[in-house]
């Protein structure tokens, strides 16, 4: 099925004196996961509000499920949309179950599904406690359960993993993959980048209300032409001795190679019998993000590190994980 769920055509938004969104084009297919990245104030939330039909685009067109999200026809479509706002704090004095029951009624979803959803997000134990006793992560999970109500066909999640512990984050991404498998389109809005790569099909990088880059990670990587990091072990003096390889050396046993030369260099390295280990690290999302922001700002930030030290925290992707982010 390749139907277009969300279609933005040259969409822009202007509040009284400030333009917060410029000429955004976006086609989101059924079953596609889009990562929307940008700093605070980049226009992510505004873009989401336009798609949700909460605010009207000042120029251009927005269509969700084929209709204008603010029109009367879009009304029934809203039942198929799940939204997790950023920083939402639910009715504190209500229990988790009461909160979710309220939202289920408003969405005309069977109240019986509330228990299931609470199970799914791991709040079954806490469902009869008032929300005010919940931790940040539990509130976030309640918000997710709310967004998952009624098997949505379109999900917009604003900073979904904020406050979640690693296990809950893992479970959250599993739910995302599962919903995607069921044909739901998902827009993941984030500035926390590590870990999200394997779960998105395409990425859009927003800054100052403009779309700086848009495409699959492989496309973005190709366009950015960022070097691949190769770390070797056991080759102490040999790399410096090789005239070819020593040019690429940035640190002891650490090479930076362009995408085209990658295979040739790896082959060359494998010829050394003393090579004990080899780690190949393609430019990750954090570096891509910095690269595009840097290009936009007019300075090529090629050597910029990952956002929030993103690519340093255990993100030593090996050859295997690179294969997972092929274009669709």
């Amino acid at each position: 099925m390749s139907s277009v769920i969300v279609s933005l055509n040259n969409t822009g938004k202007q509040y009284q004196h400030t333009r917060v969104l410029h000429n955004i084009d976006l086609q989101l297919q059924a079953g596609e996961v889009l990562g929307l990245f940008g700093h605070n104030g980049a226009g992510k939330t505004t873009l989401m509000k336009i798609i949700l039909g909460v605010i009207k685009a000042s120029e251009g067109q927005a269509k969700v499920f084929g209709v204008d999200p603010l029109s009367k026809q879009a009304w029934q479509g809203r039942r198929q949309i799940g939204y997790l706002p950023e920083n939402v704090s639910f009715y504190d004095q209500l229990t988790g179950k009461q909160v979710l029951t309220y939202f289920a009624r408003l969405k005309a979803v069977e109240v019986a599904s509330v228990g299931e959803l609470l199970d799914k997000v791991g709040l079954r134990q806490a469902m009869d406690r008032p929300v005010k006793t919940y931790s940040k992560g539990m509130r976030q999970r309640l918000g997710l359960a709310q967004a998952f109500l009624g098997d949505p066909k379109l999900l917009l999640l604003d900073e979904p993993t904020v406050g979640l512990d690693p296990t809950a984050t893992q479970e959250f991404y599993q739910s995302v993959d599962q919903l995607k498998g069921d044909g739901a389109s998902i827009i993941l809005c984030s500035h926390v980048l590590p870990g999200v790569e394997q779960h998105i099909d395409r990425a859009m990088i927003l800054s100052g209300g403009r779309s700086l880059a848009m495409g699959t990670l492989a496309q973005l990587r190709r366009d950015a032409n960022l070097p691949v990091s190769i770390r070797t072990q056991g080759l102490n003096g040999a790399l410096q001795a090789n005239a070819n390889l020593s040019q690429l050396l940035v640190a002891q046993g650490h090479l930076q190679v362009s995408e085209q030369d990658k295979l040739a260099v790896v082959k060359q390295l494998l010829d050394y019998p003393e090579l004990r280990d080899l780690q190949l690290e393609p430019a990750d999302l954090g570096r891509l993000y910095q690269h595009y922001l840097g290009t936009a700002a007019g300075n090529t930030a090629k050597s910029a590190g990952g956002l929030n030290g993103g690519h340093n925290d255990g993100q030593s992707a090996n050859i295997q994980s690179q294969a997972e982010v092929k274009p669709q």
Partner: protein
Amino acid sequence: MSPVLAVAIKEFQDGLRNRWLVSITAIFAILSIGLSYYGSAASGELGLVSLSSTIASLSSLAVFLIPLIALLLSYDSFVGEQESGTLLLLLTYPLSHTQLLLGKFLGQGAIITLATILGFGCSALLLTGQAELGRLLPAFGLFILTATLLGLCFTSIAYVISLSVNEKSKAAGIALVVWFFFVLVFDLALLAALVGIKEGLDQQSLVQVMMFNPADLFRLINLAALDTKDVNGVLAVAINSSWSAASLLLIMFAWVLAPLAIASLIFKRKTL
């Protein structure tokens, strides 16, 4: 379940959970029982007071309390949800602005209505021993009806306030000013105009000016139905007007609907 009903039920349950219903009912009950039983203590006797003086003193106290309670109950209805982020979320649901507004009005209106009926109904029961039913029922019926309308009117006004501002504390401040204006300033200004300007206001135009204040309407309707000997002040002048109780009630009803319509308009234009 219709979304209006879902919102109404939630708001009503909130009112129960926060003890709003219990406290308002208790306040009204204590107030009305106290006034009907001890109202004559000032004149040296203890015991049930005459029906008309009970209603008269009840109205003059209720006119302060009911608007305050209604404003307190509802001033943060929208701005509170806006601050916590749930308002934005609700607007992405298949729920129109008007439906949300109506749902809240039904739920919180039910709290006010129920509290008024139960609270003031108490003293009506107490008075059954003394006054004859034929006089008691219409007088208290009218009182409870107008008290409810007064409460609903200020609930609607609270929504206008709640939707016009973006901060809860600001809404609270404005609510207080609005209460002060309708309950005190308006009458003082009217009195000043009456005394100060010799040919300024005749009785007819006085009543017309009072139409602009739901609190005055409330007193006017209740006191006009009583023996005038228990009434004094500006109202005594106004009471003998030619307006029928039914038309006054109709204007009060309009005072409930008009702010609600304004709130709905503001809500539709509000950007979140």
